[in-house]
């Protein structure tokens, strides 16, 4: 047993072995790229649905804090052509979005990948802060990172939670009477719509930062396509 442990040392970030899994295992690469396409379709069809009533809050008392009241999203961002088309796209693709997310989550936890990817406040908070200080030029050098730095873990974990909230708030809007307890959690039907749109805004912000950082570190893009080296962990 000892010999096995020595020949397959685990990385600080978790269960990564020298001769084991690639940086980005196949299951993660496939679900990642499926997710990219599915989220684009969900966002485009969602904006088509929003176009029919581009406002938040119930009739007669629209929310005062929403800055884009009655402003429809640009047409070139929408998918489906009209409200019914947008709804068909949204409710069709939602199944594949959820199925893909479930495959990802099962693999994520069953494989142990969660150990090196999930944000663990005790382990990652300090590193995340120092990484943030480096990005904002308060620090000159980045803190040492193993697989992901603390800020990456925080971002990827947050975006997973946002995805879950998107599904739940979407169900709350879809069936506000049949799923009434769920709808209540989001502050009712109109609250759930606001949460659903806020979730989209967070996802868009994540994707923009994600694309910026990938363009600065193109090697990571190659890893997400080809998998990267086996087990080197860094």
């Amino acid at each position, binding site marked *: 047993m000892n010999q096995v442990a020595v020949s397959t040392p685990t990385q600080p970030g978790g269960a990564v072995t020298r001769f084991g899994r690639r940086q980005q295992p196949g299951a993660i690469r496939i679900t990642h790229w499926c997710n990219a396409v599915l989220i684009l379709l969900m966002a485009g069809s969602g904006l088509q649905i929003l176009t029919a009533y581009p406002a938040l809050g*119930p009739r007669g008392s629209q929310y005062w804090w929403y800055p884009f009241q009655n402003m429809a999203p640009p047409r070139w961002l929408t998918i489906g052509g009209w409200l*019914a088309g947008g709804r068909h796209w949204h409710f069709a693709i939602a199944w594949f979005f959820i199925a893909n997310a479930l495959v990802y989550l099962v693999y994520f936890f069953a494989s142990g990948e969660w150990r090196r990817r999930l944000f663990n406040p005790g382990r990652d908070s300090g590193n995340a802060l120092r990484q943030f200080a480096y990005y904002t030029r308060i620090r000159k050098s980045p803190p040492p990172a193993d697989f992901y730095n603390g800020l990456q873990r925080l971002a990827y974990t947050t975006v997973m939670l946002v995805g879950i909230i998107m599904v739940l708030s979407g169900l709350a809007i879809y069936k506000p009477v*049949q799923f009434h307890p769920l709808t209540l959690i989001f502050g009712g039907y109109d609250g759930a719509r606001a949460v659903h749109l806020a979730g989209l805004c967070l996802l868009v912000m994540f994707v923009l930062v994600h694309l910026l950082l990938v363009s600065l570190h193109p090697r990571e893009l190659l890893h997400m396509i080809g998998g990267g080296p086996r087990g080197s962990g860094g």
Partner: protein
Amino acid sequence: MQLRTNISRRRFIAAMAAASVISGCESRPVVRFLEVMQRWNRKTEEAIFSPNRLAPELPASATTPEDAFPAYFISDSMPLVPPNWALRVGGLVRRPMVLTLAQLQRMTRTDMRVQHHCVEGWSAVASWHGVRLREIAKLTGVDQRARFVEFRSFDSGYWSSWDLESAVHPQTLLAYGFNGGPLYAEHGAPLRVYSAVKLGYKNVKYLTEVNFMPNRTGGYWEDQGYEWFAGV
């Protein structure tokens, strides 16, 4: 009936094809995919629907100001009650009936203040009163073979069809009153369908006919491509 379903299906394809001209990315296999998923979603909606689950009744303070509660009709001008208006109830019933408004108003009255959900995404609250459709079903003696209900109107042929379970839900009314008073013309006077468990477009205004049916048919918006079940 089968013929009608095929027409609905063809119209759905036509509607999606029309949309493809706009979006430019809906080829035939894509339309087919959306059609298959739409059928799957309809079955899911039917499975999610519970005939006994009630929408919450809301306090008077939640009522939407009346001028902020949208109302629409498809005719060029507001449809007005034809002289000698009466509701015809027929189809698969043992006792087809013609009911006047006075007769309907003598039946057991139900009041409810619930949230309205429009397919466009907005919500509003009003109280509605009228007769539960299940009372009408009992009165006319609905046949075992009836699985669907069709509603027809004097608003330029606006119509819709429902599953029987949603139609006999305790919060599905043939409403003749709005916010404690009589129903306004813009909300469908003299009589309209109002339900807490369907999207707005399923709630046919300016009602003339209720028909209990053995087969699923379509509707004004449904035939143009909107979801048929449209429960909330």
